[in-house]
């Protein structure tokens, strides 16, 4: 399978934070959700991929090419949407488009106007007159109008209402249908990903906790609930995260098969959501 994005042992040190040799790959034609709490390193990773930050170690390959040696060529085929609008407030949408379009060799005005129509964006208005949702849609329209093979989105859904969010997700789903495009999509709203993502990469405190197919994650992980008397020091170690009260416990286990051996069917097993997985991993055993 051809990889669109490969991140290998990527490292970046800041004063109080470090990205510690993270690795993951995104195959062509899929959506990867990049999740983690605030400050986990999501934006840092995206900025490193876009060469807005300089890496301290490791390798990033986009379309199989080094992201710095072939920077301009690679960026021809990357569409980006960030959490804030970085356009010039004073320019109208039309002026912004006229500024940006000439930089892309395969800019397609028809596609752009198609999205402007779908998103109902007023071309003659200034950027500063748009709502947050409209700015995001405009950003997306620009990102989709130059035949991008990889869409990189940094928290595109944050601060948007559920209707706009769901519209965005529908569009994402639609654009990967031709299996030529891939999407790398960071968010802390995990429910967005349950709808569209094929792969999930979970980052926490600068480290990749897991990176695998979403269905595998949801199949393997399970929430186990039972009476507190069932716990002992041995089986307690099997939990990724656990929460105990005076009478009972519930916790996350990363392998469904283990549960039968550990508890002999005396417990309730539930399917977790991505949010449950994120919460248990982040909080770890601090409940205990």
């Amino acid at each position, binding site marked *: 399978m051809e990889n669109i994005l490969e991140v290998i042992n990527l490292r970046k040190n800041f004063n109080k934070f470090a990205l510690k040799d993270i690795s993951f790959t995104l195959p062509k034609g899929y959506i990867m959700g990049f999740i983690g709490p605030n400050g986990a390193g999501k934006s840092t990773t995206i900025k490193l991929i876009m060469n807005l930050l300089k890496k301290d170690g490791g390798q990033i390959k986009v379309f199989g090419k080094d992201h710095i040696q072939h920077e301009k060529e690679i960026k021809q085929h990357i569409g980006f949407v960030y959490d804030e609008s970085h356009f010039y407030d004073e320019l109208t949408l039309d002026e912004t488009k006229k500024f940006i379009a000439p930089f*892309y060799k395969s800019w397609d005005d028809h596609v752009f106007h198609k999205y402007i129509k779908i998103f109902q964006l007023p071309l003659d208005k200034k950027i500063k007159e748009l709502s947050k949702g409209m700015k995001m849609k405009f950003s997306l329209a620009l990102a989709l109008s130059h035949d991008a093979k990889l869409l990189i989105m940094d928290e595109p859904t944050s601060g948007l209402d559920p209707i706009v969010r769901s519209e965005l997700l529908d569009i994402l789903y639609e654009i990967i249908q031709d299996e030529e495009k891939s999407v790398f999509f960071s968010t802390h709203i995990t429910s967005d990903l349950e709808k569209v993502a094929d792969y999930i990469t979970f980052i926490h405190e600068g480290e990749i906790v897991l990176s695998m197919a979403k269905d595998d994650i949801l199949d393997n992980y399970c929430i186990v609930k039972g009476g507190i008397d069932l716990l002992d020091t041995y089986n307690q170690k099997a939990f990724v995260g656990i929460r105990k009260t005076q009478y009972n416990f519930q916790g996350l286990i990363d392998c469904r098969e283990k549960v039968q051996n550990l508890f002999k069917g005396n417990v309730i097993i539930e399917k977790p959501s991505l949010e449950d997985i994120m919460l248990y991993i982040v909080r770890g055993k601090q409940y205990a």
Partner: protein
Amino acid sequence: MLNLILKDLLVQKKSLLFALGYCFFLVFAFQSMEGTAPVAATIAVVYLLIQYSFAYDDKNKSEIMLNSLPISRKDIVLAKYLSVLLYIGLATVAYMFATLVIKMINIPLKVQFLSLQTISISFFIVSLMASFYLPVVLKYGYLKSKMFNIVMFLLFFFIPMGIISLNQKPGFSLSVNMSLKDAISWSNWQITLLVIGFSLLMMCVSCFISINIYNNREF
């Protein structure tokens, strides 16, 4: 690249009109100081336009957007330096326009016209100012270089003005142009070319430094 320069003009189209108005004001305000109005007008207008172009880049962190587009960082820096030359041209035209209008409608003012001497002095000062300021603002961004900016403004605006007005008084002959002229009996044109050539060289060195700085900038 042309696109980047045009964008800088487009975002500050309002300031362009303001700059023209400012020229009228300076023709009026610098009545008593012989030879200073054209220089002051050019420096002020160019200073203003450079400032605004960086302020607009900073406002929404638009450099993040620029550097995510398929543009090399070198081109972004080059565009800023070429813009400075364009602003000098615009400021000169704006000042010429202001003096012509005042002359044509016969306002009883003592208008100071542009001369080769004033053009070369302002070109030199603006280039010097830009050569110092651009590497700093390209490294730290507009807001973080604000302090440097204020100090630079005071240095580059008032010191040359002071020298020029001193020069008008009998007994002083500090002007670079004048002493050069005495020393090597060149024509005004030759001196102007020399000053402009030197200024351009200075900008080239500064641009080279800025490209290196900007290549390592993090956003």
